């Protein structure tokens, strides 16, 4: 059995974002990067599936991006993936979801992956498209937004999250692609011995031009911070003073303070 996990490296969402010089993306300098949160659940689920199947399957973890994505790939290897593939692309942030999906599908086309895991969405761009589109391009069965995953006899039993706490259960025969939602499992922390082991695992480099044959289907015109509605009061400074001012405002403006 062959498993593929697709991971994206994204900026820490607590960063201060600045618009870049050309006004069409955020400035990528001076940002701290990490593995897309949703993809951590994807990696964990892949490793759990491998463990369930007696460590038989091989897990390939793939990321498209500049050399810094090596860090995210290493983390996935330390969590239990077997080999890593970096599709080298310094301009991956500007590829649209259609192109990213086509790159992944081109890589996967001849490799017979039985189960492919992706995140439900990326935290920076958040299109929630890439996973489902990869499944379409490969002709794999697909279920999205998983909060439950079980596997038996070549069939994934997926619990999909709907709105308002309702879930639905779907059976998906392999080859299957699933997109992982927050809370699907508890992603493990890599242990030191596993971090050491990960250093010896294979990292394959593939130039993006070998895989990408498609033009973008959408383009970003302009990027900007949201227009501030600006009504709110901002309180800063000494804690006791801030607390007093806050309580004063609540007494004045709400009816809940007796």
């Amino acid at each position: 059995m062959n498993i593929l996990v697709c991971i994206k490296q994204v900026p820490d969402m607590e960063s201060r974002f600045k618009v870049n010089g050309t006004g069409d993306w955020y400035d990528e300098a001076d940002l701290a990067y990490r593995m897309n949160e949703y993809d951590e659940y994807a990696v964990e689920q892949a490793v759990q599936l491998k463990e369930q199947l007696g460590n038989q399957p091989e897990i390939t973890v793939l990321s498209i991006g500049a050399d810094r994505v090596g860090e995210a790939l290493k983390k996935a290897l330390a969590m239990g993936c077997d080999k890593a593939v970096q599709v080298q692309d310094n301009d991956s942030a500007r590829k649209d979801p259609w192109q990213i999906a086509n790159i992944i599908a081109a890589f996967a086309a001849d490799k017979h992956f039985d189960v492919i895991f992706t995140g439900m969405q990326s935290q920076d761009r958040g299109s929630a498209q890439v996973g489902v589109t990869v499944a379409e391009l490969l002709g794999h069965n697909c279920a999205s937004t998983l909060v439950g995953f079980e596997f038996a006899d070549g069939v994934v039993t997926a619990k999909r999250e709907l709105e308002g706490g309702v879930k639905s259960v779907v059976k998906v025969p392999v080859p299957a692609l699933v997109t992982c939602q927050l809370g699907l499992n508890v992603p493990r922390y890599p242990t030191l011995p596993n971090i050491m082991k990960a250093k010896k695992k294979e990292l394959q480099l593939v130039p993006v031009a070998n895989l990408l044959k498609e033009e973008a289907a959408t383009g970003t015109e302009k990027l900007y911070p949201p227009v501030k509605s600006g009504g709110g009061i901002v309180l800063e400074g000494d804690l006791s003073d801030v607390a007093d001012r806050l309580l004063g405002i609540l007494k004045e403006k709400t009816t809940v303070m007796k």
Partner: protein
Amino acid sequence: MKALLVCEQREGKLLDTSYELVAFAERLGAEVSLVLVGKEAQAPKVTGKLYLADADKYGEYNPELHKHIVVAAVLKENPDYIIFPHSSYGWDLAPRVAATLRVGQVSEVVNIVDGKFEVSLCNGKLRRTVTPKGARAVLTVQAGAFNYAGQLSGSPQVEAIEITQGSSPLQFVGYEPAEKKEVDLGRAEIIVSAGRGVGKKENVAVIADLAKAFGGELGASRPVVDAGWVGHSHQVGTTGQTVSPKLYVACGISGAIQHLAGMKKSDFIVAINKDKEAPISEAADVMVVADVLQLAPVLAEKLRAA
């Protein structure tokens, strides 16, 4: 300009997001047709053509078949835009339709700016305008971003739609209802919610104590629930509870759209966050820039003394 709106129903009920699509199409100035896999009784009460496929035959949820149904409607109608709600139904189905038609998709549109589609990124800290390249495109529309103010009195002109595919390998087993609530946040007058910013499980007690000092209930953002720090019934947001208390205090919560959707109708919103730029500041009446673990005990003490 023509728009085909993909409506959604669940367990025999048309979902309100279907009307939000109508509102969006009005903003676009598009001529509207609709498609629904459901029953005639659930037809949206608007005028326009409705392509109706039978849910008994094609399933409540079978995205493979639903995809072919939408594509069949597209071939009949020739729309410029095929529009879905950005919901568990829409984000699952839209990319399948876009890939089949080989057209671009713009996800989670929040606004139309100078005729271009505005979407949010980086947890709401940035916006961008996106333009599809081809003549036709798939869009998904953020829930709650467009409100339908029109009358619900129209009746669509129904045309049955059939496809040749009768089955798919995907098997829908059934629904699992939402967990029983231990706390009914919907009735609370004051809610004080803990977010990931509280750092660890032990610290939730600090926020719970503040909630108590206010005489309110404890709410939470999703990561706090996912990590098992509090039960699911405390979760506020699209996949938790929708609340509208007189006072909502968000402690260490960044203000992701799915959280905001659950609490933005509160009468008065206070955010306590160490990041002044956190998107929650947009929704907050008062933004307190502080370490919530330090401020909460001070605040609780003053409340008790008052």
